[in-house]
């Protein structure tokens, strides 16, 4: 058995989800990491230092700069020979490309796995995590996306794999990158943060999210939101935690003014410790919270900020 992991990166650094994907891959066999990008030698060198990596393949070409699915999938398809498993992080990057690779190889894909039972058998959530399925693939090659929060990342340092250059496949010319508008993030990203504080409809306005941001900055936390808060226009969509947003599992998740729609809980219920702050003592969020505090968030949040300053 031999496993190919397709790295997610920004041409400068590996995304943390890649290290979790390598952890899942290491359960299956020796791991080769494919780094496709432009001027991304530093990423390949970083991948070579990660634990459990046997080899790094580097495809450095302008066509891969923006990770377009058409060009990267063609490259992965061309590199697939000899591998029994091809793994991607289940991020917007991996979800975009992996099915394209699976179809090129005429194999099924196993999406968003949270467990590896053996070489053919994987565990994955269905119905937004309301049921857990164990599935077996009958295909010779398994194309898989890995839910990063379900696998502890491998160490970023300590390995010394060799980096070899692989030929770039031709640009398909089918698509081109026009532009990106990335939300400015002074704080950690939701999917890699160890503490997250999220606001819901109870925040009442985008302005009031400042109360949450103050606490986030004291804790080094990421700021999230429920779909209700996003739909109400308080915060941008990429803040969204839930079935239709991001699935997170930090050490500490603080839900403020979030009632606990199934939709939201599907995205955060695997957090290690959950705190709920809500004025409605019967809100469903309290059924999964380790610590619940009933009260008016507009009083509680400033109090919490002050309390965190005390040592």
């Amino acid at each position, binding site marked *: 058995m031999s496993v190919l992991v397709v790295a997610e990166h920004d041409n400068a650094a590996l995304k943390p989800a890649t290290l979790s994907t390598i952890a899942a891959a290491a359960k299956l066999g020796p791991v080769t990491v494919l780094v496709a990008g432009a001027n991304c030698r530093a990423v390949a060198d970083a991948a070579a230092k990660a634990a459990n990596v046997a080899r790094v393949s580097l495809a450095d070409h302008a066509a891969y700069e923006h990770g377009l699915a058409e060009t990267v999938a063609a490259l992965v398809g061309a590199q697939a020979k000899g591998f029994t498993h091809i793994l991607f992080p289940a991020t917007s990057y991996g979800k975009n490309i992996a099915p394209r690779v699976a179809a090129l190889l005429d194999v099924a894909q196993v999406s968003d796995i949270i467990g590896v039972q053996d070489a053919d058998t994987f565990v994955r959530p*269905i119905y937004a995590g309301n049921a857990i399925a164990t599935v077996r693939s009958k295909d010779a090659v398994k194309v898989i996306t890995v839910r990063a929060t379900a696998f502890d990342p491998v160490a970023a340092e300590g390995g010394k794999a060799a980096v070899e250059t692989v030929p770039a496949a031709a640009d398909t010319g089918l698509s081109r990158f026009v532009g990106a508008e990335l939300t400015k993030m002074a704080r950690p990203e939701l999917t890699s943060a160890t503490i997250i504080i999220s606001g819901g409809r109870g925040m009442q306005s985008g302005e009031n999210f400042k109360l949450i941001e103050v606490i986030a900055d004291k804790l080094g936390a990421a700021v999230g939101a429920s779909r209700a808060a996003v739909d109400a226009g308080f915060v941008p969509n990429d803040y969204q935690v839930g079935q239709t947003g991001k699935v997170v599992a930090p050490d500490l998740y603080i839900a403020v003014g979030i009632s606990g729609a199934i939709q939201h809980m599907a995205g955060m219920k695997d957090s290690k410790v959950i705190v709920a702050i809500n004025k409605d003592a019967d809100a469903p969020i309290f059924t999964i919270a380790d610590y619940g505090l*009933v009260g008016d968030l507009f009083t509680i949040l400033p109090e919490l900020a002050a309390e965190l300053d005390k040592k």
Partner: protein
Amino acid sequence: MKVLVAVKRVVDFNVRIRVKADKTGVETANVKMSMNPFDEIAVEEGVRMRESGVATELVAVSMGSKACQETLRTALALGADRAILVETDVELQPLAVAKMLKVLVEREKPELVILGKQAIDDDCNQTGQMLAALLGWPQGTFASKITPGTGTIDVTREIDGGLETVGLKLPAVVTTDLRLNTPRYASLPNIMKAKKKPLDVVTPEALGVDPAPRLQTLKVEDPPKRKSGVKVASVQELVQKLRTEAKVLR
């Protein structure tokens, strides 16, 4: 341009999911079924293109049991011109669906295929990308905005950390994210009119595709239950417990 949308019949998003006692799957008997919410967004986008004159014809496709005709009638009531059902009782998985869609695309020759980014039952998020690969077409997944041009289409995509816009050569495949639009409700007169719109039924055999599943489901279980914890009386108590009991704050 001609536009094709694909819709799936799934357990309604408001239904509380119950795992079957024999662990073979989730209960779908006597459960309310609806069009997959992301596919509703796909239909709405197609209807808007039809209304603005960008689309000349809107064809809705579904696959599965005879009951999927209901889902297609909904798409017709929302504004699709005609519908095609690939009828089969075999469990359909994304690769098989993509292969059958490919055959229909080759017959119908749309310039744009719009699908939901994922179905809320199996949560696969695969079919659109697979269809694009099989056709050798570009793809714009997780779309929050579609801007058709001449021979091209710009798609703004929801990605981790923000938005990205890609320019695709037509023909192309687009999959929808939540913010693309807000789907309308079908009006009663349109529901009545939909009953008279054409709905063709074909089989996987007629399309020359073997729909047999590649993944075998060994078991389906309830997720581990999370115990509810304690209510604390004050912010002081909360912070103290987080520091000393849960040890998640220093």
